[in-house]
């Protein structure tokens, strides 16, 4: 039986750059542990059990977004390798594949999306997704053109293998006035410099 899991929203799941950045520094195995810990952080109320031990979510966002130098991370943020003793590595995701997609059609019971395989690349795919696979928190994002991430794989939790399929919608912050101004400045510049006959 497949478990389609609904998680609380967390920025790292929605940020396509998270894996990219960490891949440079750590093995994919470690990244998967990291992500799994965040996904299941409610189960690790006792800091002894947690590999990460965030002070709180706000701290984690600040650190990752603002510090490029990983060596400067405070101890509470980064796991120490000595902490990865075998008895603690009990939650991870294996054999996973990820896609980024956007909605091209909204139908009665399902939506259709164009998908790009971000694990292997190559040709695009088109897939149908039932609305009930989308978590309550994400339903407001169900619009034509909405971008989402879909991952499929086996997760291992406390030694138990679970087949998982997770759909997460991208949720970047709304534009600021500066963003608009930057775009419109570019338009003005193009209008003045491009020559149309």
């Amino acid at each position, binding site marked *: 039986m497949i478990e389609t899991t609904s998680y609380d929203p967390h920025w790292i799941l929605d940020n396509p750059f998270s894996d990219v950045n960490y891949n440079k520094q750590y093995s994919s195995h470690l990244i998967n542990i990291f992500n799994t810990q965040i996904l299941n952080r409610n189960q690790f109320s006792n800091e002894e059990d947690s590999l990460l031990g965030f002070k709180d979510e706000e701290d984690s966002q600040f650190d990752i977004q603002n510090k490029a130098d990983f060596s400067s991370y405070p101890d509470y943020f980064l796991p120490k390798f000595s902490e990865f003793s075998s008895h603690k590595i009990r939650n991870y995701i294996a054999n996973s594949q990820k896609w980024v997609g*956007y909605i*091209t059609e909204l139908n009665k019971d399902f939506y259709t999306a164009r998908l790009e395989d971000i694990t292997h690349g190559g040709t695009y795919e*088109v897939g149908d997704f039932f609305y009930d696979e989308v978590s309550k928190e994400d339903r407001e994002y169900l619009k*034509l*053109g909405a971008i989402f991430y879909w991952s499929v794989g086996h997760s291992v939790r406390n030694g138990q293998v679970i087949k998982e399929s997770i759909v997460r919608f*991208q949720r970047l912050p709304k534009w600021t006035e500066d963003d608009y101004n930057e*775009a419109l400045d570019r338009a003005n510049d193009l209008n003045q410099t491009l020559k149309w006959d």
Partner: protein
Amino acid sequence: MNPSFDPPESNTAEISVLGTGGGYGECSIIHLGNNSWVVVDSCIDPLTHSSLPLNYLKKMHVDVANDVKLIICTHWHDDHILGISELLENCKNAKLSLAKTTDRVKFLSFVSLDFQKLRSEATASSTFEINRCFDILKSRQQDIISAVQDRLLISLDQGGNRNEIISLSPSDYIISEFDKEISTLITEFGDPNQKIVFQTPNTKSIVLFLKLGNHRAILGADLEVTEDIRHGWLNIINSCQSIDKKASHFKVPHHGSENGYHSKIWIELLKENPLSTLTPWNRNNKLPTPDMLKQLITHTDRLFMTSKLLKDKPKDRKKEIEKIISRQKRNLREDRYHFGLIQSRIDFCDPNAEWEVALFGNAFHVN
């Protein structure tokens, strides 16, 4: 004629139609004679993301930096524009032609706003390509040639023959309608988590009329037939002043769809039994339909397609992943890449010459 990547003779015109099966675009590559080339639209190989017309020209050892004179973007749907910026970047002397836009500030604002979404992966492929093209043209200080009805886009004197390409569309009416379309799109772009999904019709497509010595050709782009004669094929038939002779070569519009067909096109604009080329569409509703194919072959026994229509099938992947997907009963199908090229050549100095066709990849003769 055997397929060959030998470049054409200086007095030989070439129209090569290149297709990918639908999802990765289509284009036409034209030799006007004497090493002067024009590329209409662009498409990519999804495995390498390289521009297919560029690959083709390089394979023929064409000096793309100097010999490609013009790149025409018939309309900015994804299946006509992918890879066009890479093409322009390499074709350093080529000008770019786009359909005329009256309200340029609004148009540029729209594409710049959409380009700003690049960091969230929400930029549409078409606006991304157009923005890159604008940056290239800006750095080169090159003109953009606006295509409108009956506009001469390029004219070359080839050994006593004037070989020309003229745009037959968009009509004035459609150009004003496009301004309204941009006004609508610009209000929809604002969410950084959302791509604009273009659902606009193909009315703004640039149909091209080629004069190659005594021979004529029409490249139909994606233009459709509408009851409103202010635009579409009936507008071309009723209003265009540039069509001096019937064409012996026809690129069938809009993947051979029903909405791109009218018997008047075949009777009034084309010679009997014209060489006809078609690029199929394998996504969603597959084109051409069997009924339309039957209709088309009543007009010509020289209909060629860049590839056959393919059945939907899932992509090959790891068994473990496939198992999970199949248990979810998810309908997942690959947007298959099916390359095909129809190369046709004619001696434009010989008024009695016939088109010679060579087929590459999955291209085939329908009837």
